[in-house]
């Protein structure tokens, strides 16, 4: 019996129990203490589990939830780390409070990837994308890419690595000798050129080739820096796809239809909106196929999959339908704007910007997002959060008049105000992580939604 491990479990569980009695989310603290007592806590807990690790800047939570649902629908037992707590301590808490299951699905923060992967020794590693995000925490994306590459090259076990080929950094990682010689690489990507175009958006940020720092040439952009790229001098190409995503039909907030093709075709339907969700759900589907789940189960599971916490979740309040959309970086913000544009109805928006650590303390990303595109579809804005004025200023410089913007600092009051004053039936709230949590608490009190940690 490992005394240290046993003690860390006991202590962590006790903290968890007390926090829950107090009605707290308790996603980080118990794990933090378990690791303090036994630094190898996560490694020891994961030893008898099949683990899947998911990382990437955008889409982790949706992908992890979709994969969890497919596996559950296939009668597998799963553990999944608690909403939004994707640092090592969050993973520790997850192991602390769950019995061993068939699969543990672990979302990790981009930076925590290199500490979590060697400890949990995953059978399957999924990397979605690498965008600019909260650079006050992670530094620059080149550094994150190098860290991922180093982590994958130095693992002392073989894993299957599922990569988004449309992201040049991941295309590069998956074609690198030190990684291909050790792991099984599977590439997926879009193959429908109705999506996107020949010109990049402003927030494209990985335009130099990772091979030689020459400018990457693009045949096509899907969005941001995701596309079909190549760099002739170093003979660097968008990799050959193992799974192609085709025949995409976008129906704005009504969801989408698409096909995934390898040796066979699987037709999929989802209620989740936007191209970014097609990437997320396709990743979950392909992961499930790699784990030998039957197509019929996958199809059904995706068709009735509901969005994760705050990811295009729709809630009815009085006679209004309110959609909650998480924003956390310029690429994500642009994707939400595209989605709002897909549907020609004019909209009133609530935008909540906090600058807590979980949101990123640097708000400069608001200036990188293509807010100007909202002028075509937005009538009125309510801005809220600790940086409500910064957001209002961004709108002013995008060309909106002061009478088109209402500033209400407190998010809860802002939501009341927004619901009361908008004449529109469909309302949209674009929120950073902690403003989302604040509003969520209000909705829990009104008994409209469940607490996020359930």
């Amino acid at each position, binding site marked *: 019996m490992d005394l240290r491990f046993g003690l860390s479990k006991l202590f962590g569980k006790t903290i968890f129990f007390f926090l829950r009695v107090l009605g707290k989310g308790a996603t980080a603290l118990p794990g933090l203490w378990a690791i303090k007592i036994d630094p190898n806590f996560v490694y020891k807990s994961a030893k008898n589990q099949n683990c899947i690790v998911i990382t990437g800047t955008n889409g982790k939570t949706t992908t992890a939830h979709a994969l969890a649902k497919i596996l559950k629908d296939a009668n597998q037992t799963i553990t999944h780390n608690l909403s939004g707590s994707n640092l090592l301590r969050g993973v520790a808490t997850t192991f602390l409070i769950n019995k061993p299951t068939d699969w543990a699905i672990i979302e990790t923060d981009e930076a925590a990837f290199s500490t979590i992967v060697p400890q949990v020794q995953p059978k399957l590693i999924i990397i979605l994308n690498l965008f*600019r995000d909260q*650079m*006050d925490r992670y*530094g*620059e*994306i*080149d550094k994150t890419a190098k860290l991922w590459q180093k982590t994958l090259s130095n693992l002392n076990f073989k894993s299957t690595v599922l990569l988004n080929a449309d992201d040049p950094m991941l295309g590069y990682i998956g074609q690198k000798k030190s990684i291909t010689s050790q792991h099984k690489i599977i590439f997926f990507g879009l193959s429908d050129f109705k999506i996107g175009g020949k010109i990049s958006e*402003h927030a494209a*940020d990985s*335009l*130099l080739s990772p091979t030689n*720092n*020459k*400018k990457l040439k693009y045949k096509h952009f899907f969005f941001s820096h995701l596309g079909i790229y190549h760099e002739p001098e170093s003979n660097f190409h968008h990799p050959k796809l193992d799974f192609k995503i085709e025949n995409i039909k976008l129906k704005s907030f009504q969801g989408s239809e698409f096909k995934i093709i390898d040796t066979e075709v699987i037709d999929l339907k989802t209620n989740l909106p936007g191209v970014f969700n097609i990437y997320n759900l396709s990743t979950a589907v392909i992961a499930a196929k790699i784990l030998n789940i039957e197509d019929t189960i996958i199809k059904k599971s995706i068709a009735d999959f509901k969005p994760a916490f705050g990811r295009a979740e729709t809630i009815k309040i009085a006679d209004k339908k309110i959609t909650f959309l998480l924003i956390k970086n310029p690429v994500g913000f642009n994707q939400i704007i595209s989605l709002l544009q897909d549907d020609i109805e004019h909209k009133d928006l609530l935008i909540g910007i906090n*600058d807590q650590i979980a949101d990123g*303390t*640097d*708000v*400069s*990303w*608001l*200036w*990188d997002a293509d807010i100007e595109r909202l002028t075509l579809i937005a009538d009125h804005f309510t801005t809220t959060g*600790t*940086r*409500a*004025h*910064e957001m*209002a*200023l*961004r709108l*002013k*410089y*995008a*060309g909106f008049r*002061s009478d088109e913007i209402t*500033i209400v600092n407190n998010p809860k009051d802002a939501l009341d105000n927004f619901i009361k004053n908008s004449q529109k039936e469909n309302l949209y709230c674009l929120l950073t992580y902690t403003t989302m949590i604040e509003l969520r608490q209000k909705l829990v009190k009104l008994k409209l939604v469940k607490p996020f940690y359930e």
Partner: protein
Amino acid sequence: MNNPEFFDTPGKKQLTIVHLYPDLMNIYGDRGNIIALKQRALWRNIDVKIIPISLGDNLETGIADIYFLGGGQDSSQNVVANDLQRLKKIIKTDVENGTVALTICGGYQLFGHYYKDQKGKKLKGISIFDAHTIAGKKRMIGNIKIKTNIIDPGSIILGFENHSGQTFLGKNEKPFGRVLKGYGNNPRQHQEGIIYKNAIGTYLHGSLLPKNPGLTDWLITKALQRKYSDFELSPLDDKLEEKTFKEATSRF
């Protein structure tokens, strides 16, 4: 981007911004500075032309009223440093003649003599500023507040800094401001940025110009006074800018 038709409006004043490497040097919302310059000029009925200059593009002296160069990732910065040598003489001539320039973070470093990385390798700049930068171990990150006498005596400027490079000015050079909160050029001297003639180098992202409209107007005024001797900017309603500035002040 190129809108020559704007220039046919008779009697209208014209502002030309040369945006250096917008595709490569554009992190931390530096694009917000271009948006602020453009909008605050347009709101005063001044025509604005923005010329993007990137790898291999031609440039001549006397075209720019304002040069802007933002920050980039290390990989971009290496490529840009190389290409910038081609334009060194042109930019130097213009700045010596009083052309306005705003350079931020990586851009500021490249306008100095060199950037020396952790391994001691030097990345050559274009020596507009008598300054050099040495990579430090500590990342200087967070909200920053400085005091400068350039706009009005004792003006306060706010931004967000995120750099590990430590910049040191030549002994005759004047810093852009004094650090009240944060780091600035380096952790020891409490100096922030540089001002040489009408060219500013600074570590302030944020975006810098939108919530510091006094600085934006100073840049526009300096740029247009060279072309139009009697030029004065008309006032704008800056209530929201002032409130945003206050909000940013409260986040320290």
